[in-house]
Structures are given as structure tokens and as C-alpha cells.
């Protein structure tokens, strides 16, 4: 039986959050009344002309640089011709053979392993309007009428095309997540999958392991979450393998992911590539990126999630936690950095920040807890002044009140009793009351110690340091 190797490439569309649209002065704004942010240019009225948005161009250069791409010194807009009711000019201003950015890469991390995924290109284009099909289940062919909203028409879009370097559905998901984190870091887009401000399409094919040539690829669309992206790719890989093993062939087509059915279905067959009759957009001049501008944008890039992940790993944080922390909210990362600077162990701190602190802040958003405070809390755990479970309670209260860990622990009466005299007394008292257990222990039944520890803990109200209790018990039992 043949072993199959999946080959996956991802195309990402990122809507930029510039103040105005790509080629006109209309506001880029989501959730407005239909057809309120429109003008002759983005409606494609006769005679209207595009003027390129400099802020959008700066954003795509930053994206290209963050993906280690070469920025073309000169780049050209093309017209991509096709008829669609929500495409006002019936051509999309896009880029064909002269994109802004080419030949980059993104290091992704999956299960502790880092893989370098090639980036073929990133190009600039404009978004279309939206078709709202009425009746017939919202699908174009069964709808009774269609309403058009052009608010989105002309919103700047960056399309990022990966090389077919991904080998599993899980890798596809990791790539998508890491790329989204990078876009969020650059602050060029809202990058919300559920709102469509970042959209992932996957090109999937399979081939026998060891084969040099790629199999026939299928494009899959309509994935609204990272989970559905992973499921869709996995489902498509399975479908293709089943086809090939059954003696059929895969046909080149676009397939639509159906989240409920958990499978893809055919949207349109495309034998060969579609003929979009690309040609140079005569209404726009070639884009020229001066070397010093590119250099400035490069040096102004923030630290990127992949670099940050490496930095955390270098500090001793395990890869999986480092990845989560690298993509975490900046406020959380700042707390981590401050806590480590105040002396906390990086790995322990990372676990607390990505685990308990993230959970607490999700429930109770607050800015009251600082890195120094967290360091204080972790030090108390380390020194045996707080149990881990009590520490979680303390953290919740710290977030709510902003008070220091020691103060909170005392107020909630959660400090462990580490007063040896008190523990000695409690142990003596328990042993006196349990002659049977003492006798069993002394005859070699060591597991009885657990029962005795429990009794001491109960008698101290759960606040005694369990380690200390254990030691004291053993000493007195021997003695």
C-alpha cells in the first residue's frame, strides 16, 4: 500500500486597518449601515480614478519585511478581470507578476519543533463589496434577490502566499496561527477570522511519499476559525487519499468547507488556471520603494512572535509554553518580563502567566496586577509560605484588589503554618490520640503516614506546610 504525503500551501488575505480605503478617501470601518462608506471611486462609477493609499503601501512593506521578504524596488498594479456583481468595476486592482514582496519565510513551531515555511509573495489589492443573497438559504443560485453592500469595496487587502511547504493539517493550523500573530504584532489589521479581516484559503494535494512531482491541487475556502482550517485540511487530505486509493483521480477545483457536515463540497471546477487577463493598471503609476524608506521601516519593526519565542526558549522556557507566551497579550508578556526581572524562575513564571493569570484576567480584566506582584506570589510558593492551590486564590484576589501577595494571603488567612513549635505540638497531640496507627507504622506499615498527615493538616486548618508535617511525624514516630 502507498504511503501518502500531504502537501499544503496557504493563501491569506489580510484586510488592513488603514484610516481610508486603498484607492479613495472613504473610511475603512466595519459594521456600518450598508452603503454608507462609498464614493464614485469605490463604486466604480464612470470616470472615477484610483489613487494609491500610502499608508497601506507602508503596511505591506512592513508585512513583507517581517516575513523576511525582498521588497521589490519597483512594483506594478495589474487589473484582474472577472465579472461579479459585488466587484464594481468588474476588475480587481491587484498585482500579478510584480508583487511588492517576494521570497520570504516564517518559522512556525509545532509540538516543540520549528519548521521554516517559505513565503512566495505578498501583494497589494483591493477588497470587493459583499453580496447578501435573500431567500433560498442565502446561496446565490437559489436566492430570490441579492442586495449589495459596497462598504467593503476598495478596502486594502494584502494577499500572502506560502510555498507548498506544509505537510499536515496541524502544520497548516500552526502556520495560520503564527502568521496571524505576526500580523497582530505589526498592528496593521484587526486580524479577526470571525469578522473576515483575516481569511485563510488552503491549497491541498497529496502524493506518494518520496514523489518529486506535486499532485493535483484543490483549493478549499470558507474556514472561519483555526480549528475549522485544520479540520478542513484534514478532511480534504482524507478525501484525496480515498480517491487515489480507489483508483480515481483528483480534479483541480475549488471546494467549499461545510463546517456542519465536516466535509468539503465542490464550488467550481477549474481545469488549468483561470484566465483573468491580467494587464498593467494604466491608471496607477509603478510603485517605487526607496531603499532608505525600506531600511527605516525595517529598523522600526517590533520584536516578532517567532523571535520572541526563541528569546523565551533561551531563557529556559519550554518550547510549547514559549510559543503561547510569545503570542500572548502584550500586557501579559510585560508581567512575565517584570516578574523574571524581579527574580522569578522564567519557566515557572511562564506557566503561571499563560495558565492561571490568563484565566483570571479573562474572567476579570484588570490592570492591577504587576510583574513584581506576581514575583512576590511565586516567591511565597517557593519558600513554602503558600500552597499552589492557595496561591491561585491569592492571585484572583490580587487581580481584583491590586494588593501584594503577602497582604492578600494574610487577609484570606491562607499562609502556611511553618512555626515548628505549633507543628510539633499538633503532631504530638495526633500521635497521642492514635496509638493503633502508631503501632502499625512502627511494625512497618509505612503508608499509615498519609492518614496521620491528613489528621495533622485537619487539626491545623489545612495551613501547615505538608512537607514540614511529614518530616516532624517521621521524627516523632521514630523517637
Amino acid at each position, binding site marked *: 500500500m502507498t504511503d501518502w504525503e500531504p502537501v499544503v500551501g496557504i493563501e491569506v488575505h489580510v484586510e488592513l486597518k488603514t484610516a481610508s480605503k486603498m484607492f479613495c478617501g472613504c473610511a475603512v470601518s466595519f459594521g456600518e449601515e450598508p452603503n454608507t462608506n462609498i464614493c464614485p471611486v469605490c463604486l466604480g*462609477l464612470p470616470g472615477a480614478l484610483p489613487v494609491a493609499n500610502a499608508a497601506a503601501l507602508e503596511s505591506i512593506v512592513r508585512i513583507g519585511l517581517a516575513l523576511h521578504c525582498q521588497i521589490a524596488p519597483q512594483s506594478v498594479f495589474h487589473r484582474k478581470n472577472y*465579472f461579479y456583481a459585488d466587484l464594481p468595476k468588474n476588475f480587481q486592482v491587484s498585482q500579478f507578476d510584480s508583487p511588492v514582496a517576494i521570497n520570504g519565510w516564517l518559522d512556525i513551531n509545532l509540538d516543540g519543533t520549528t519548521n521554516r515555511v517559505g513565503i512566495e509573495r505578498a501583494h497589494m489589492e483591493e477588497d470587493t463589496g459583499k453580496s447578501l443573497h435573500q431567500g433560498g438559504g442565502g446561496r446565490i443560485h437559489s436566492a430570490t434577490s441579492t442586495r449589495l453592500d459596497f462598504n467593503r469595496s476598495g478596502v486594502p487587502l494584502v494577499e500572502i502566499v506560502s510555498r507548498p511547504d506544509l505537510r499536515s493539517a496541524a502544520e497548516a493550523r500552526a502556520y495560520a496561527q503564527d502568521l496571524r500573530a505576526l500580523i497582530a504584532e505589526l498592528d496593521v489589521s484587526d486580524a479577526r477570522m470571525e469578522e473576515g479581516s483575516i481569511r485563510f484559503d488552503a491549497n491541498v494535494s497529496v502524493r506518494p511519499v518520496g514523489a518529486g512531482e506535486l499532485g493535483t491541487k484543490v483549493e478549499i475556502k470558507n474556514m472561519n476559525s483555526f480549528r475549522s482550517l485544520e479540520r478542513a485540511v484534514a478532511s480534504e487530505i482524507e478525501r484525496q487519499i480515498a480517491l487515489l486509493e480507489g483508483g480515481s483521480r483528483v480534479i483541480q477545483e475549488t471546494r467549499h468547507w461545510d463546517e456542519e457536515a465536516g466535509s468539503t463540497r465542490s464550488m467550481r471546477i477549474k481545469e488549468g488556471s483561470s484566465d483573468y487577463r491580467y494587464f498593467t493598471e494604466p491608471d496607477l503609476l509603478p510603485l517605487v520603494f526607496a531603499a532608505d524608506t525600506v531600511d527605516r521601516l525595517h529598523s522600526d519593526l517590533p520584536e516578532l512572535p517567532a523571535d520572541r519565542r526563541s528569546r523565551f526558549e533561551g531563557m529556559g522556557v519550554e518550547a510549547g509554553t514559549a510559543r503561547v507566551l510569545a503570542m500572548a497579550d502584550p500586557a501579559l508578556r510585560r508581567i512575565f518580563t517584570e516578574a523574571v526581572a524581579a527574580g522569578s524562575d522564567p519557566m515557572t513564571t511562564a506557566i503561571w502567566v499563560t495558565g492561571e493569570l490568563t484565566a483570571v484576567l479573562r474572567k476579570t480584566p484588570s490592570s492591577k496586577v504587576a510583574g513584581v506582584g506576581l514575583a512576590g506570589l511565586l516567591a511565597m510558593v517557593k519558600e513554602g509560605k503558600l500552597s499552589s492551590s492557595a496561591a491561585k486564590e491569592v492571585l484572583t484576589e490580587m487581580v481584583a484588589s491590586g494588593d501584594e501577595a503577602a497582604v492578600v494571603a494574610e487577609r484570606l488567612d491562607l499562609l502556611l503554618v511553618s512555626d515548628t513549635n505549633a507543628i510539633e505540638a499538633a503532631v504530638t497531640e495526633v500521635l497521642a490520640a492514635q496509638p493503633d496507627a502508631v503501632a502499625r507504622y512502627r511494625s512497618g506499615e509505612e503508608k499509615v503516614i498519609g492518614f496521620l498527615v491528613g489528621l495533622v493538616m485537619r487539626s491545623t486548618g489545612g495551613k501547615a506546610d505538608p512537607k514540614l508535617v511529614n518530616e516532624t511525624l517521621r521524627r516523632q514516630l521514630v523517637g
Partner: protein
Amino acid sequence: MADLADLTVATAGERLATGEASAADLLDAVIRRASLTEAELHCYVTIDHDGARRAAEESDHRRSRKESRGPLDGIPLALKDNFCTRGLETTCSSQILSGYRPPYDSTVVARLRDSGAVIVGKTNLDEFAMGSSTENSAFGPTRNPWNPERVPGGSSGGSAAAVAAGSALAAFGSDTGGSIRQPAALCGVVGFKPTYGLVSRFGLVAFSSSFDQIGPLARSVADALTLFEAVAGHDPLDATSYPGTVPEARPSLETGVKDVRIGLVRELSGEGYEPAVTAATNDMVAQLEASGAIVSEVSLPSFAIALSAYYLIAPAEVSANLARFDGVRYGLRVTGETVEEMMARSRAEGFGPEATRRILLGTYALSAGYYDAFYGQAQRVRTKLINELANVFEQVDVLVSPASPTTAFELGAKTQDPLAMYLTDVCTIPANLAGTPAISIPVGLDADGLPIGFQVMGPALGEARLFQVAAEVERLATFDHRPEILAAASDRL
């Protein structure tokens, strides 16, 4: 005293300044002329009686308060019907835009309104400016004032005929392959295509974006310059608009042509050129030489294949530019069972045969597998021609040629033969391919009493030299003929 409708813009301006005439008088004169000639000539698609009246009254009011805005304040002008005019029907002489009222003014229209010009109406054209005779109008052809059995040329035939007939003192047109200069030549008026980028295309309904350029049609070289000056200059709404200073041409109107190096283009003569046209061209060249110009014959081999390149690139751009007319948002909608069917039917019914032909030609030229052989090759020819022109302009200051190989031909003579029609643009197309300025000036009449146009071409941004030579051509030609129809019209007054 001559009819006000026959004045140049300059003379009308003097009358306004002295108070001998008002803007309302000028408007009355051209409207009266239109009422006498329109039934026969059909220069206009729309006459904006109310808007023009209001503009004329406002102009007179400004003048009475000594707040007049300059040489165009109160001057009745016509606009080709492919300039967007806010609230005023803009049809491009196409069924698909019949009844379409733009929500905005094109930049040129906005600047004309600011200059105080009175916009009389919108003139007829070949549908979407595609044609050389104004016969491709969905609303019927325009006829040539010099002989109504003849075409006025095109595609700005309505504007050229209106200026020749006196139903406007001057007009604006658009020139993609000669659409200002060729009708100007056939109608005996001056037509000027500026350097690409000097006049904003914002709001001009696009035919072929990389060639389209707006320019004036007028009764004198000086008037053409006045109109150009009123609308030229950088426009942030047009990315292809030239960001620098507009060349200053007015001082060179009076300098003559002594020691100016003039090149007569060898490729724009010979077979296909009417003897009267060749004779008039050579005669003018001899007169220029006699006036002190240094004349030589020059060769630009790419001119011979410019037409072929143009008829691939322009349709390619048309196929995309005209894709937006689909019945979805504005214009003609013919319903269908599906959106695709609605679009297809609207387009099939809305576009005339020439627009359809060019859309198909361009779609084909851009198709996978054909792109490089057609569109790609045409772009290489264009580059070659630009380089040849740049070299030639090292040796000469301007190039001269006929503006059209023939005088006005009869209606219907070429409508069944698109290639013959395309060949009428052979003299004018090179300047569009190169984006360089060119002007046509009437220099005489043929044996049938039809005007002959003489073309002067300059290097990019060489408007000063261009107008220097054009003004001398105008002085030497002393073209003071009038179409007979005007005498007849005057008799009916």
C-alpha cells in the same frame, strides 16, 4: 457687426470687458445658432438650457460687481458627452448610459465652472469615443457643417462641428487616437491634444486610460491655449496627472519660427493621402521655411506600425474599462433569470457594434496564450516608438504632417469597413502612443470646399514650441473661410 456666435473666445472676451455684449447675449447667440443648425447637424446630445442660463446670469452679475474671473468668464462652451457633469446627463452616446446623471463633476468641469465658463451642453461622440466619424453614436450621427453629407470626423465630432457651426464659441473633447485633432481637421477648427498628464482625466469616462487626454477645440490657436490654461495642472485625484509646472506657452505665440528646426514626417505621406492634403501640407512647410524655419525630412519607422499597436492596446484597456457597465448599479438594465444573464443581456443591448467589436478584440488580445503575441508585442512597439521620437526630437524641435490623410468623407462611406475607418487615425495615433502634445490647425480647403488640417507635434512638455509653430502656421494660412451653411442660417435669422 458679425454674429456673436462666430466670435473667437478672445474677441468675445473683449466685448464682455467693454460691455458691448453680456454673457447672456453670447449664450443667446449660440442657442439661436443651435436652434437653426441642430436639426441638420446634431452636434449636441443635451443642451442644458437652464444650467447655461443660470451660469450666464451669474457671470454677468460677477462682471457687474467687477469680480469677473478671467478669460473664460461668461464664454459659452460645449463639452463632449464623456465628461461627467453633476446632475446633467452624461451618456457617452451609448444606450447603456442613456439617462445616467453622474453624482459628481469631472475635474475639468469643476475647473471650468470655477473659471466662470458657461456650459451650453454635451456634444455628440462616437460611442465611448470609439470611432472617427461620430457615426457610432447611439443617438444618430453628427454632420459636418461644411457639407452635411460628410462626416465631421470623430470621435469628438459633436464638439468640432459645434465650434465650426457657432453653436459654441469653443469646446472640449478627448483625444485617444486623434479624437480631437482629426475632427478639428475635418471641421476646419483648431484641435489640441496636450502632453499626457497635463490635464486631469478624473471624471472623463475612460476609453483607453493610457492614451486618453483632454483638450480644446477652438477657432484660433490662442483660444485653444486659453482653454488649455484654464484646465491644465496637477490633480491629486488622477495618479497619472503630471505633478510639475504646466509649460508656459503664451509668450511664444508671437515669436515666429526663425531658426526653429521642423521635421516633415516621411511615413505620414504617400499612398492613401489625398493629393490636396499633401499639397496643402507641402505648401505650408514651404511657407514655414520661407519664414525662417529650418526644414528637413525625417523618418520614424515605427509610425508605420503605430496603428496596429494602438488597435491592440486601446481595445485591451477598453475591455476592462467598459466591464463596469453591467446593469448592476447604474445605466441600462435588461433583466434575466440570473445575475450573469442580466449582465450579459444589458451589455448586449447597451453597447453598439463598434464598442462590442473593440471589447471582443481587447478581450482576445489579453487572453492566455495570446497576450504576449498581441498585447505584449504592441507594448514593445510603443516603447520603440517612444525611443524613436525621443531621438528625433534631439534633431528637430517639432514634427509636422497632415492631421488626417483625407478631408471629410461621406456618411456611410467607411461604416462597413472598420479597417478603413481605423486608417483615418494614422497621422494622429503616434502622439497618443508616445503621450506627446500635438495640434491640428486648418490651412486650406480642397476642391470640394472641405477643410484641410495641418498637424504639429512636439516632445513631451514641449507645449511652448508647439504653440510657437502653430501660431505661425495660423498666421501663414490666413484661414478665414466659413461653412456655407452658416450663410444660409444667417439668412434665416
